[in-house]
């Protein structure tokens, strides 16, 4: 199972093209870094890959075929800002359940405390909240993880802990990962190969 972006171009409504002609393929178990300046459309590209937005041109294919609707999306996205990724009116348990049945072992390895499950999002620190977003994204149906600045808000020990969990899962399940980060040292440490979004972008305005 492969995740493939073919000649993908995207813009919001009638706005300018954010990018065009993007070709990226991620193999199962492969960890790919994506770098590029802020505002160059990396996050929008992540949203297209994970099915939050439709490509305006080109296509996203997984498994060699197009994506099915209304099933658990095999491409899961974790953003930089956890406070924007959770419903403020839901307690954490409900938010977690969006990712499927609870996996106690996973929660433990991510350092999620039981009692956090009954809290509201604004009663957790930024880093605590982000662990929930990671847990929610690692449901058993996830084949690809798009990590958009996923651990930027975490301390180095927690960052290393979470990446070790995610990397192990990538190996075990053959999960592919796209790591988007400004932290060059982290990208170098994690990725098999690194692509530069800016150079790939055929928009050339």
């Amino acid at each position, binding site marked *: 199972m492969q995740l493939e972006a073919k000649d993908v171009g995207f813009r919001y409504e009638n706005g300018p093209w954010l990018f065009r002609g993007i070709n990226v393929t991620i193999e199962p178990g492969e960890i790919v870094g994506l770098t590029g300046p802020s505002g160059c459309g990396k996050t929008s590209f992540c949203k297209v890959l994970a099915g939050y937005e439709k490509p305006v041109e080109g296509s996203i294919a997984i498994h060699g075929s197009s994506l099915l609707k209304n099933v658990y999306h095999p491409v899961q996205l974790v953003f930089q800002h956890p406070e924007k990724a959770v419903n403020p009116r839901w307690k954490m348990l409900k938010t977690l359940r969006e990712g499927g049945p609870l996996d106690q072992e996973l929660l433990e390895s991510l350092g999620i405390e039981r009692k956090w499950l009954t809290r509201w999002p604004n009663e957790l620190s*930024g880093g605590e909240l982000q662990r929930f977003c990671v847990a929610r994204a690692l449901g058993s149906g996830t084949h690809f993880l798009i990590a958009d600045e996923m651990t930027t*808000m*975490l*301390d180095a020990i927690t960052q290393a802990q979470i990446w070790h969990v995610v990397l192990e899962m990538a190996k075990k399940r053959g999960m592919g990962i796209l790591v988007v980060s400004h932290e060059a040292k982290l990208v170098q*440490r994690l990725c098999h190969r690194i692509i530069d979004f800016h150079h790939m972008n055929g928009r050339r305005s």
Partner: protein
Amino acid sequence: MSILEVEDLSISFKQYTGGLKQKHHHVITDLTVTLEAGEILAVVGASGSGKSLLAHAILGILPSNAGMSGTIKYAGDELTAARQRAVRGKEIVLVPQSVNYLDPLMRVGAQVRTSVKQGDAIRAQRKVFQRYHLKSDVENMYPFQLSGGMARRTLLSTAMVSEANVIIADEPTPGMDPAVIVEALHHFRELADNGCAVMLITHDIESALKIADKIAVFYAGTTVEVAPVDDFFGNGEALRHPYSKALWRALPQNDFIPIRGSQPDPSALPSGCLFAPRCEKATLECGQARPEMRNLRNGMVRCIHAT
């Protein structure tokens, strides 16, 4: 005299656990920290260790169910609730960690202008946007139209134009380009060199080392170490506290190997050293009493065995 002195600060949350039983979550315990005019203090440490709550306590914006003890002094006098209201956003400003603090109904240019106290507000706002590589059409946008990095640059701009005496920046740089980060860091240094006191809360230790004077390391709601920046090198051999060393070694550019476990539960803190459950160097004595903060080699540490 220090411009800002936080002494023996403790913060706890009450939580009702069925019936009339309540539990206290001790999220900050006996925290002491000072800011000097003209200096940058970087605050690093565990996520969930109380860094943002410290910032909120100084600004007087803790949630209403939080209990607080200890004292906070500003310019020598106690920072009472009334004084906090008077200086907030003027003499003491916060760059909040959450981008949800932007007013969703106000164009971002106008938001930044409201914090300019004297002179031409429009000019000041445009100048700071230029400095942070925000294009001229951004000022007319609403927060929902901004990317994550743009929202952070807007929050930062608001503090930078304020001419405050104390700036508390809570994770101001994540998601920004390296070039913009460098610009922001220079800007903090410039403000400090002009007499401002800056508290820079960050997980980006490498950036902090470039501009800060001192680094305070937080764990489980207290300061475990205050060290001059020069002590962060190599394997962390010059650092004083076992947690600081572990944090340094876990960086991707160092070993990237985490120590096991997590911070203690704030409703059941260990009676001795808060780091003891995870500390390789722990002895029986460590479990008996909370180590006091003490001076050591031109810095401070809260560990009885540190040398």
